[in-house]
């Protein structure tokens, strides 16, 4: 398999290397020639979708490229790009590439200091930004970024009284570019012709959980070959509709709404503002859509809340047909056999419920939706699939130009991320870490050879930092960050985040922290979800005074025990993780809080800190006691400190015997 893949990759690279269409600017010219009248970019402005055809986009990119050159932008220069998804900013990326420069899109919500680091590191002399907000941020750090010489903005609003000579309206730059082009008619074409597939195309700074951000260098070959492989795999066409709403600095946006658009010629639409995304989604009706699990989760929650407010008949209809969909929706989508009666019911449900629902959400025309970034709850995943939406998981990284694995149609499972994408090779290293090799593998980290060597081996294998394994069907399953995976005393693998996610997928459980490294068994802290459990308690006329009271109730404990038992049953069916069942747990007396240092600001649990902070609770979990009194200091929102007393009960759960047939038992 490896041989054939390697030859195919070589062939691809040769094709990319020798053919004329090996850079983004060359693809732009080609698209303008082949499909000049088709839309390339769209933006909602003044309440109306305004379009650029490929021919118009080519004209604007040319004007902008020449204008940049006239201002002194040279081959090899970096162009910082800061702003929401805007056609002009995408065109600025291509314009920079056309004159041999390198666009560096940056996160638009970063504070000035974070921007300063990237600007200094890239030595960018030019920046194209969206509006006054970004101009102000750059002006603030300008004296600390000596390289930055020109700032070009899209929206002149509020900038009337800014007299700095280095500030330019993008229209003015285009105007200068058109004049420059008249005087130097060969300049633009020569610049594009000089570009090669192996040239540096773009630099993307990864936010990096540790240390300073690293600049991932991707070549045109990386972008174009990865984009093309995925286009072929999913049969994407030039008439796809895509909404570009994820940050431009994120690698996914550069593939889904930039490189793939150039390769297959489809139109990319930019929302009116970040607040109108859901409305714009509905108006546009994308056919190809990406969203992280969090967004799908929010949509599902909104739907459920609105259904609660609907008339009783509508509620009945909804619940009846959603039950039908849950039973047969996914099998129909995957082309499995389904009884005639169920097909008829599903068809009726489509007219009465699924169709209107998808229409309201803007998903009527979705042919392909991806989700990635973190684990998605099976309920959420199944909900959208049961509606007939082809939502699939992929696994990728900036260093891979996105694609490492993609779930093929008909082989979609909630707990795996699919087999390797076209031309990608995957191995599991001895320490359990996933490593891969593909045509999308990045060139290097900018100005950081040490980090490059640590991540990418000499023969092109890249360390992902994620631990996982390949299941019986050849699908990759990611379980945790490799550095967090450890072993119990009996040698069983222990993946804390995997267990915590499994627990958190239950609506009653808000947070979970698991322990097991160098221990005899796995133990857990659980935070209940006050809203969900509170609601549940209300319906049972269970009075409670607050979180601590509710969390200490026996009824609530029973609820959590059920969840933990279910997780254990799932684990028992898993050949790799059967040994890491949760044996003892307690429901914490307070909610884990970022203010107390227990969560990060992005709301991830800080396992180490919690383990130290509640050492006596952890000790109790690994003793034979069935309760543990605790007195904890808490910080209130106004900064005052107080103490909470509680006597926590510790629950012991009998492990489930490992079941033989994993697939069946998973039901």
């Amino acid at each position: 398999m490896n041989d054939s893949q390697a030859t195919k990759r070589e062939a691809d690279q040769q094709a990319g290397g020798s053919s004329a269409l090996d850079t983004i600017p060359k693809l732009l010219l080609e698209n303008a020639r082949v499909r000049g009248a088709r839309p390339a970019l769209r933006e909602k402005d003044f309440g109306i979708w305004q379009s650029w055809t490929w021919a118009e986009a080519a004209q604007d990119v040319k004007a902008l490229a020449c204008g940049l050159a006239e201002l002194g932008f040279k081959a090899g220069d970096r162009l910082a790009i800061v702003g929401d998804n805007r056609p002009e900013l995408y065109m600025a990326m291509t314009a920079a590439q056309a004159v041999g420069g390198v666009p560096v899109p940056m996160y638009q919500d970063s504070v000035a200091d974070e921007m300063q680091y990237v600007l200094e590191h890239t030595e960018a002399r030019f920046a194209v930004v969206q509006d006054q907000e970004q101009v102000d941020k750059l002006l603030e750090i300008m004296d600390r970024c000596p390289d930055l010489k020109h700032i070009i903005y899209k929206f002149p609003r509020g900038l009337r009284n800014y007299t700095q000579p280095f500030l330019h309206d993008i229209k003015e730059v285009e105007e200068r570019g058109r004049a420059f082009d008249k005087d130097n008619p060969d300049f633009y074409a020569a610049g594009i012709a000089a570009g090669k597939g192996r040239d540096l195309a773009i630099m993307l700074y990864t936010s990096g959980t540790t240390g300073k951000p690293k600049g991932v260098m991707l070549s045109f070959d990386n972008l174009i070959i990865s984009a093309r492989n995925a286009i072929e795999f999913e049969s994407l066409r030039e008439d796809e509709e895509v909404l570009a709403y994820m940050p431009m600095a994120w690698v996914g946006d550069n593939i889904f709404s930039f490189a793939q658009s150039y390769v297959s010629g489809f139109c990319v639409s930019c929302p009116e503002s970040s607040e109108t995304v859901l409305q714009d989604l509905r108006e546009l009706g994308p056919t190809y859509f990406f969203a992280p699990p969090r967004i799908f989760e929010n949509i599902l929650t909104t739907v459920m809340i609105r259904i609660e407010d609907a008339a009783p008949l509508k509620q009945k209809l909804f619940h009846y047909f959603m039950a039908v969909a849950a039973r047969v929706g996914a099998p129909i989508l995957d082309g499995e056999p389904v009884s005639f009666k169920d097909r008829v019911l599903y068809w009726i449900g489509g007219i009465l419920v699924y169709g209107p629902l998808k229409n309201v959400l803007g998903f009527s025309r979705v042919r392909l939706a991806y989700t990635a970034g973190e684990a998605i709850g099976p309920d959420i995943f199944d909900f959208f699939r049961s509606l007939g939406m082809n939502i699939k998981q992929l696994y990728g990284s900036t260093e891979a130009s996105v694609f490492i694995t993609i779930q093929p149609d008909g082989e979609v499972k909630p707990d795996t991320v699919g087999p390797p994408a076209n031309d990608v090779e995957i191995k599991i290293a001895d320490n359990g870490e996933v490593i891969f090799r593909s045509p999308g593998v990045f060139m290097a980290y900018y100005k950081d050879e040490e980090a490059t060597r640590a991540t990418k081996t000499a023969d092109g294998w890249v360390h992902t930092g994620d631990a996982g394994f390949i299941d019986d069907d050849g699908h990759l399953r990611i379980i945790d960050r490799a550095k967090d995976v450890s072993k119990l005393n009996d040698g069983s693998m222990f993946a804390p985040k995997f267990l915590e996610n499994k627990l958190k997928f239950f609506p009653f459980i808000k947070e979970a922290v698991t322990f097991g490294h160098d221990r005899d068994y796995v133990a857990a802290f659980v935070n209940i979800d006050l809203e969900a459990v509170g609601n549940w308690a209300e319906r049972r006329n269970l009075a409670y005074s607050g979180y601590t009271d509710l969390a200490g109730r026996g009824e609530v404990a029973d609820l959590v025990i059920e969840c933990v038992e279910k997780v254990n049953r799932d684990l028992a069916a898993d050949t790799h993780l059967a040994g890491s069942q949760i044996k003892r747990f307690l429901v914490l007396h307070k909610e884990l809080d970022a203010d107390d240092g227990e969560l990060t600001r992005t709301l991830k649990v800080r396992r180490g800190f919690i383990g130290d902070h509640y050492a006596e609770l952890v000790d109790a979990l690994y003793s034979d006691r069935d309760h543990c009194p605790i007195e904890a200091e808490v910080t209130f929102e106004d900064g005052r400190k107080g103490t909470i007393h509680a006597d926590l009960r510790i629950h012991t759960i009998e492990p489930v015997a490992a079941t033989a047939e994993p697939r069946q038992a998973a039901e």
Partner: protein
Amino acid sequence: MANGKKIGDVLLSVQNINLSFGGVQALVDVSFDVRKHEIFAIIGPNGAGKSSMLNVINGFYHPQGGTITYRGVTRARMRPHEAARQGIARTFQNIALFKGMSTLDNIMTGRNTLMSSNFVLQALHWGPAWKEEKAHREMAEEIIDFLQIEAIRKTPTGRLPYGLQKRVELGRALAAEPDLLLLDEPMAGMNLEEKEDMCRFILDVNDEFGTTIALIEHDMGVVMDISDRVAVLDYGRKIAEGTPGEVRVNQDVIDAYLGVSHD
């Protein structure tokens, strides 16, 4: 803020205004000038006569004495809709939007004095009225873009939070393309972030459209930051006028705000 800004001639001149309700003297001999392109603030403690002053300019109250000269024309008695025709628009302290109508429709009502087709044609959405509406809709969209309220374009205003309702109301006033914009406590009841936003919008309106703005406000801090000139009222009398810097150190003003007894 005001760098590069050109303050022009007098746009509105208020001279020796006296206004009383029965025995209550609301305004006593108040005079001031508002110049083109400036942001002019009238401040004062509660009950100082600020809103009365705005209502006088607006034509809602008719003063017993004094003259108001707007664009060189001294007026005797004027109704509010005449003021609107002359290019004076205002917002209200306690929001007066059409709560059941969308943001867009509310802003469109601000265009009404500028529409020439009659009520019947508008209702039928027919002939010239259709063309006209298109032009007005474009202007409304520009205002929506300007105030960054795209996301609530079609939301009934009654469902909006307070800060946004204030913004929509500003939008409706702007829709009349006023030369003089009167703002009645634009920041009242807002949290800090909403106040900052509103300040930004007031400055931008003044800057981008060249609109002259007269506002009343009791939040001193805000007023001092954005105004070109300030007049201070206390018990219906003007006790000070000048730049924010001058007013801030004026002893009468300090006394009025700290509540020194009046002999």
